[in-house]
Each structure stands twice: as C-alpha cells, then as structure tokens.
C-alpha cells in the first residue's frame, strides 16, 4: 500500500475514530514521523495535515482566468476566507468578525453547539456587561425622548455619560494594521 503523503510504501497504519467515523491513514516511516504519528504515547497526535494533491495539474486552474474581483480579505490581517480551506487556520482574531457567518456555518458540524457557554475572561465580562448596560440605557433614552419625557431622558443621558467615560479606555480600537 502506498503512503497517503508520498510515493513510498506505507508501513504505519493510523486509525482515528472521531464522531463515530473511522478515519484510516497509511503512512511511510518518514511521513509518519513528520506527522507525529509514531509518538508511542500518542500524546501529541493532533490532526494530520491535509493530504497534498498528488497531481500537479490541479494547482493551475486555467479554466477560470476571467475572475477579476478579488475575494474579500480580513481588514485586520489580509486573510482571504479561501485560505482557511488550504491551511485550516484563520489569520487573526478579527477574521472571526469579518467572516463570522461563513465560519459559523461550518462550526455546527465540529462542535456540540454554536455559542460559547464556558468561562469568560474577567475583565471582559465586566466590559461586556457595561456594554450591555449602555445599550439598554440608550434604548430607554430613545423611548423617553419619543415620549417627550425630557427630564427622564436627561437623567439617562447623564448616567450614560458616566458609564461611557469609564468604558472608553477599552473601547478605543487600535487602527487596523497595514497588510
């Protein structure tokens, strides 16, 4: 049997069972070492790298030269969503904002759910709660103005100002870096 990664003869057979699906890989000695498969305690066996295309022709896609519009890239780091398919990894944390819907679309199959239920870093919990409170006050203020209850609106505005002042240091986003 041939190695999944190169032309050599496969001697190491690696089985992973994930979500009830058995994935068998056949590797030669050298590729097995490179992929970390031969670690006897299997501690560091991670995901195997995607198997490279063995035929070189696939790389050039001459049938599609008309493609003028470049795919959208993350303003934070210049990463294009298609790169995820190649590398399995994103470019920066801002990619999650920029490609949020595309990423979320794929998360369901990987995880138990699609929203975080675990721990929240301490400072961020406070900042988040503050943000939520600010949004709530904004809403109340708009309502008060609609009701022409200006006294209440003024009080809410003062409260908001105080909160926003306290929140400014974290809210100041640093400008996106040059790609």
């Amino acid at each position, binding site marked *: 049997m041939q190695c999944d990664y190169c032309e050599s003869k496969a001697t190491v057979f690696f089985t992973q069972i994930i979500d009830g699906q058995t994935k068998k890989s056949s590797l030669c000695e050298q590729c097995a070492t490179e992929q*970390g498969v031969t*670690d*006897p305690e299997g501690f560091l066996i*991670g995901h195997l790298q995607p198997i490279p295309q063995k035929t070189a022709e696939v790389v050039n896609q001459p049938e599609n030269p008309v493609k003028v519009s470049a795919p959208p890239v993350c303003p934070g780091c210049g990463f294009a969503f298609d790169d995820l398919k190649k590398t399995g*990894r994103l470019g920066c*944390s801002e990619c999650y904002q920029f490609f949020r819907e595309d990423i979320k679309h794929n*998360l369901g199959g990987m995880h138990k759910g699609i929203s975080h239920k675990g721990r929240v870093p301490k*400072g961020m919990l406070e900042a988040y709660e503050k943000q939520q409170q600010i949004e709530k006050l904004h809403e109340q203020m708009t309502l008060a103005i609609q009701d022409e209850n200006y006294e209440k609106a003024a009080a809410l505005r003062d409260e908001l100002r105080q909160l926003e002042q306290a929140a400014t240091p974290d809210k100041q986003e640093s400008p996106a*870096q040059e790609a």
Partner: protein
Amino acid sequence: MMRFSTLMKHPAEWMTGASDDSSIVLTSRIRLARNISDVPFPGWARKPERIEIMTRLRPAVESLTEMRNAFSQQLSELTSVQKQVLVERHLISREQAARNEGSAAVVNRDQTLSVMINEEDHLRLQSIRSGLHLREAYKLITKIDQQLEKSLPYAFDHELGYLTACPTNVGTGLRASAMLHLPGLVISDHIGQVIQAVAKLGLAVRGIFGEGTESLGHLFQISNQSTLGETEDEIINRLERVICKVRDHERNARIKLAEDDPQMLADKIGRAYGLLRHAYVIDSKEALTHLSLIRLGGDMGCFPKEVISLCDTLLMDIEPAHLQHISDKKLTPEQRDIIRAEIIRDRLQNIPTPDIGTLDNQSKQEND
C-alpha cells in the same frame, strides 16, 4: 532560569507519580488555546511580527508565580535533539518543534506546566498530571490563565468564546485528554467494541496501529473533540465519566483473562520478561509491545509494584531523542536499537522473574 540539563535531570512529576490509580490511566492532560487580539495568529504573522509578539508574551509568562525558576527558551536556541526530547516529554508539540525564531517554550520545574508561545496559537497552556486527575489539571492551568488574562488582551468574543487560529478549538479552547493502557481489552479482543462506544459519544480515540493489528504499547488516548457549546466542566465531566467506564472495562477484562486463561497470560508476561532481560538489539515497536506486558504484570501482582513507574520512565527514555541525549551523541537507528536494549536490560536487572501464581490467586480472590 533553569538550564536544559537541569530540566532533564529532574523526572517529570507525572512520570514518577505512579500511584495505584495510574495503572490504567497513565496521565491526564489539559490544554488551553489562547490568543491576543489585534495581532495576526502565529501561522499568518510575518517573522518580525512573530518575534514582537513573543517578546511581549514571554515576560508575562515568565513572571507567573508558578513559573519561578522555570525553563524558558526560544526554539531557535535549542538543538534539534533538545527540541525532540521536549516533544518526547510532552512538553512541547511537534508543531512547535518545527519552529525557530519567534517561538518559545516555558516549562516549570516539576514539568507539570508548560506554556508554548507562538505555536499554532499565541499561547498554548498545558498541564499534565499522573493518573485520572483531569479536574486537578484544569484547576492548575486555570490559575495561570486567570493571571495572564489580567495583563494580556485575550482575543475573546461573546458569541464564539476564545478565538483560536483553528476553528476546531474555538469556544473554551480546551482540550482534555487521558492516556490509557488497555492490554486487557486488546488481548481479550474487546477493544474494538469499546472504541466504537466511546467514539459514538463524540470523543476521539487515538492509537498507533501496526499492520492492522494491536495498538503500539496498548496505549490509547481519549480526548474531547468539541470545544464550543458546552462549559469547561461539562466537557471534563463527560470525558471523565467515559474514561472511568473504560477503566472499569479494562479492570474486568484483566480479571477475566486471569480467570479464563491464566496460562496464556502467564506465557505472554513471562516471554516479555525473558525477551527484554536478554535482548541486545531491540527497536522501539518491539520494546513497547513487551514493556506493555511487563506493566500489565506489575498491575496483576507478578512483579513488585514499582515496575509500573519503572516502565513509564522507560517508555520515555527509550525514545530516539532521549537515547541520543543520554548517550550525548548522534546515533544511527542501529546504534539506538543496541543502546535501547542495554538500558532496558539494566533497568530490569533487579526485577525478579514473574510470580505467575498471583494470576491464579487474583482470579480466586475476585471470586470470593
């Protein structure tokens, strides 16, 4: 800061901490993936950016109380054998070993905690304990995480949790895993069923298989796959419940083997002992197969109890980079096989011949 040689002189806590409860579950490990916001992930960052990020993160990690007198090195400062030794000790990952400038590893003295800087994520925090102690390991690593989150702007999103380079880790960023030694289930041919059952619960089981047969050293790793949509406690509890079940199955399989076919078991353990005591050339696969049976014998009373931790230390010491580190020179695979055999003979020389009678007794005792 601790030197590499000092680090090597100290065995890891989880190698020597072999208590009764580590005879089936060798180790528990927790890993947290963390990133800081506003800078590219290590795999996408350019070299100067990576170096800058490392320079920022390293002092924060080194100043942790738990990292006092820690080992801390840039990957570019280590030789390839040294890197490989750290991999074999499970202190850094293979992925990190392939990196150089702009990547660093910080390891505490007991080797229970390691922090990888600029591996796949900006930070990979890891703790290892011997036996089944996932919660303890989680507590340990969370202490560090909570200190770091005070000084570092973690990339966090209220919907998606901790943001990671790979979407498979997003959410809690938590990977919990345990290493299990399951010779009883393999010999009695029940391992397939158990693996299938575990896999159906959405957990990953990994082993190394030779030509379609048994897993190398009868060692299996069970870990969570999903990191999003559950709390850390839910992930750990679910995994722990499953591991306890597998451990019970293994325990029963061992008892049943001793009951049904003590001669077969005695033969396997006796042959493994004879072979390892008298081998002069042995490759890693063969060594692991037989050490696994010695380890099983240790648990079933054929050898003194210390044999289990002796085997666990050997598992590591006979790996290629450890062999080269011990002999302080580069070795060809053939030379390694000779030195491996020598080390094994030396470590086992004071271990008496297996007391096979205990197999019979054990099954009788369990029946009473």
